[in-house]
């Protein structure tokens, strides 16, 4: 996921910067964190707990929990977390 959709017509949301594993990443204020990460090519969000397989967002509606990340230090579902300036995200690979 990462089609060139930032800057689509009608997107009036300001550009902000979020920190993903200490790296600055551009995002649109108010979009969901999973969308912002995907636009930047960040699809792998965690590892599965038993087999250690790569995992990313799957349902985008708050059900599957595959996008649970540490956001400002608290475990959050990224698909339910709107982006704002300075958000810190850690992909620790845990649940």
């Amino acid at each position, binding site marked *: *996921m*990462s*089609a*060139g*959709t930032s800057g*689509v*017509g*009608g*997107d*009036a*949301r300001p550009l902000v910067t979020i920190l993903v594993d200490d790296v600055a990443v551009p995002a*649109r*204020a*108010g*979009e*969901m964190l999973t*969308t912002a990460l*995907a*636009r930047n090519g960040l*699809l*792998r*969000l965690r590892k*599965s*707990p*038993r*087999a250690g*397989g*790569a*995992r*990313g*967002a*799957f*349902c*985008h*509606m*708050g*059900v*599957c*929990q*595959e996008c*649970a990340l540490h956001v400002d230090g*608290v*475990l*959050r579902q990224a*698909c*339910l977390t*709107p982006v704002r300036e300075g958000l810190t995200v850690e992909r620790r690979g845990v*649940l």
Partner: protein
Amino acid sequence: MTCDLIVLGAGPAGANAALAASEAGLKVVLFDQQPEAGGQVWRAPSPGLAVPPSPEAESGGALRARLAASAVDRRFGRTVWSVGGRFRVDAVGPAGNETVEAPRLIAATGAHERVVPFPGWTLPGVIGLAAATVLLKSHRASPGRRVVVAGCGPLLAVVAAGILKEGGTVAAIADLSGPQDWLGALPALSTQPRLLARGAGWALKIGAARVPVLFRHGVRAAEGEEALARVRLAPVDAAGAFAAGAERVLEVDGLCVGHGLVPGAEVTRLFRVEQGFDRRRGGFVPRLDEDGRTSLHGLYACGDGAGLRGAMVAEAAGRLAGLAAAHDAGALDASAFQSAAATPRAALARAHAFSDAMADMMALRPAQVAAIPPDTVICRCEDVTRAEIEAAHGDGARDMNQLKHFTRCGMGPCQGRFCGDVAAELLAAKVGSREAVGTFTARPPLRPVALADLLGAFDYSDIPIPAPAPL
């Protein structure tokens, strides 16, 4: 706080239920996990993002305007984690935990994706068809630059057309159904000419972009290391099992795949109301009277969470359940109720043929489940494979809760929502029937919440310590 009626879910069903009951004079609290009403079908666009006009955007916008003008107490962005008593709802939101109590509750909790597992379905870049509609409707984001769209039902065309609109490439559409299946459904589909016309519009868009449409094809595997790199498609027979024929390998960065939906019936299951297994409706669903009452006094269900029938039915069934709750609460007398109920009842009757035809196309195909390779992950959360589920049966597991104890299948953070239906089908193939294996028991927390959200800011010095008892 207390009110007359709590409604869970602000999609077409729940929002209409809340509005109908509120207009009849009840004090209504409406919960939803998303920041805005509309559910997934009428999903609200992300704030600050203009979306192109569509019937869904229009219906969703109209619904949100009606809610905003109503007396309904809207609690959005809330995760409902416990429902108990007769009835008490606990939900975590921006201000921490909140508790609401009411003598009546309507569960309009919608549905979630069903993906019949194949090797690699857990790779980043593989998402559900319904998930893709969320990205397209809410965020105008394509689920990849070059995408395969696979599975069954009308969402294939919706998603493929949406990807094209946002500038993505659709490498192929793989439809488990054949043209003859669609032709067979045509008489029922033509009972809703407006929707049929929209389907034709999607097909034209897909045709104009020269997207290869592979009928009677399924996903053999998704492959890649840290994310999806390619998809293998292979022919299937009418029952959904892989058939002889050439495999196609497509290099892509996105796969949107869905095999129908599963009703989110956890709330009614939690209260152990009477339920039954109905393959056409997506699995175990509560038994309802014609107005949406469950077998438990004061508990109602409507929309896809009460059995898959789609948005049109959800709207009418929601309105009917809201009116029934108002009638049962004494806010509408019998004749007022009957006259108000006539319109949604007629809408329900009109929508049946269409929704049945769609539901049949998206129902779980047993032969497709039988074709899952043994080492394929079924339970994503706990990495439980088909072979492990069948080994558990060999060790004596005979129902879904025993399977959970033996394997941890369904014990992870999604709480069995994504594996439950297929795991039950696999176990039922050994045990004899879906009725015999049943479902995972629903229990709180209905959805995971952070302990910090329940506790709030809290320190050891905040713990009240009573004075020691005199000796």
